[in-house]
């Protein structure tokens, strides 16, 4: 296996930047769909770090874990979007600031 040209550190840094951006999206955006998209971004950032370390240690476990994360993300999106649709039907809004009451 020839030596890689791009160091693992750079991938970890990039993954940290993307993760921070995803966190910002979760905290700042009020649209529930955008919050979900930001969570996907965070999951992808974590996956990128996993892939970088999998190459670093020559160990496939990291890549298998990425596969599992992708599968779980698919399940999470299915449930989450179903929730959003159900909430939109009752409250006519997907602004998460307006979802703080259980009544009405």
């Amino acid at each position: 296996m020839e030596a890689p040209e791009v160091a693992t550190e750079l991938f970890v840094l990039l993954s940290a930047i993307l993760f921070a951006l995803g966190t910002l999206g979760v905290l700042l955006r009020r649209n529930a769909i955008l919050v979900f998209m930001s969570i996907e971004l965070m999951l992808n950032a974590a996956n990128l770090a996993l892939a970088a370390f999998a190459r670093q240690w020559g160990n496939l476990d990291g890549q298998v874990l990425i596969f599992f994360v992708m599968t779980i993300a698919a399940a999470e999106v299915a449930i989450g979007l179903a929730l959003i649709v159900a909430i939109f039907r009752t409250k006519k809004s997907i602004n998460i600031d307006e979802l703080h009451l259980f009544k009405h």
Partner: protein
Amino acid sequence: MELTLFIIVGAIAVLSAVLMLISQNAVHSALFLVLNFACIAFFYLMLSASFLAMVQIVVYAGAIMVLFLFVIMLLGAERLLPERNPRFPWLVPMAIVLALVFLVAVSLAVIRGEIDLSERASAQPYIRVVNVVDQLEGGADVYLDGHRLVSGLEYGQASQFAPWDRGRYDVALYKAGADPSAEEPLATIKVDLNQGEAVSFTAVGTAADPVLVVANEDLRGASRSDALRVTVVNGVRAAPMIDVVRGTDASEDAVLINDLPYGEASRPTTISGGMTDISVFSEGVRRDRLVTFENRDLSPEQGQLWVFGTRYLPDNSYEDVFHVLETNALPSFGSPASVGLALFARYVLPMEMVALVLLVAMIGALILTKDMVGERRVVRRRLANPPPELQAPITPEATASRTTIEG
């Protein structure tokens, strides 16, 4: 070159993430996220995770994002309302500060070298045993530092490749059923197992005086699709040195292996596949052809171990034999084959649990949206057969007449 690509694509990834965050239209956000996922798929390719790159495109950028866009368009939520009077005015600066703190912490850890990246490891070494010792009764037992690798391995057989820890080992060959603590080994050899190697301990020679040969194979797959990698072991006792030649005459350009001493293995050599004759010559001098093996089919994309040996016949004469041990090239790191192998060998149980989670998610999505389906049915029935007084006027004239009647 690779670094330049990394910087360009990394910049695109960060930019698309930022644009996803700040764009006011949810559809634009989703499309920027698709761009971001494509960049990450590119990084997977750079990290030799080719299978995951394809899964990323198909599952993430394809299936999941289609689901997102579908829901956005279904709810008509693409135009976002301006986010007025936030309930927590301190949340925006707080979130930005927290994100910056996180970034600085991670960067410090990376820059100061707190992450241990000193040693780049590749795959574990793989080892196996090949027995080409004639007339060894009951087969061969091979011990590695006292651990039994194989027992009763018959003549001409090879054990399966097994992963082993790297390190320095003493390899010892015994007759089948021998007690390693009491008996002297028939042959021993010291070996260094390094990361990523595929080593065949090949026993050659006669039962009275066997020799263990360490043949280092290269199972990473040949660089060309019509080529294969060959490692040759010389077990012909009568020939101190051999040359291995393609074809039957010893022209210089057909020599595959030059001057291989008895009891040693060649380095892995890449040769092209196809039907061919393989001849073995005594060292250097091209006049002395030991034997020709005709019409050998060399199938490409394999690793092959060739062992030339001698076999004694009942009438006390001997013949030269040619053992070909084929190994399909080990799947390269991150390829679909290797990921699939890991999933279905070591990770079967987690795989089944994830499948169960997906099933639960399907049922959950059905249950969550079940009430809506009922509502919609009621609405449809009402619309299909409304009472006359609820029927809406259709044309302006009808509206006018109705108003006059009511007035």
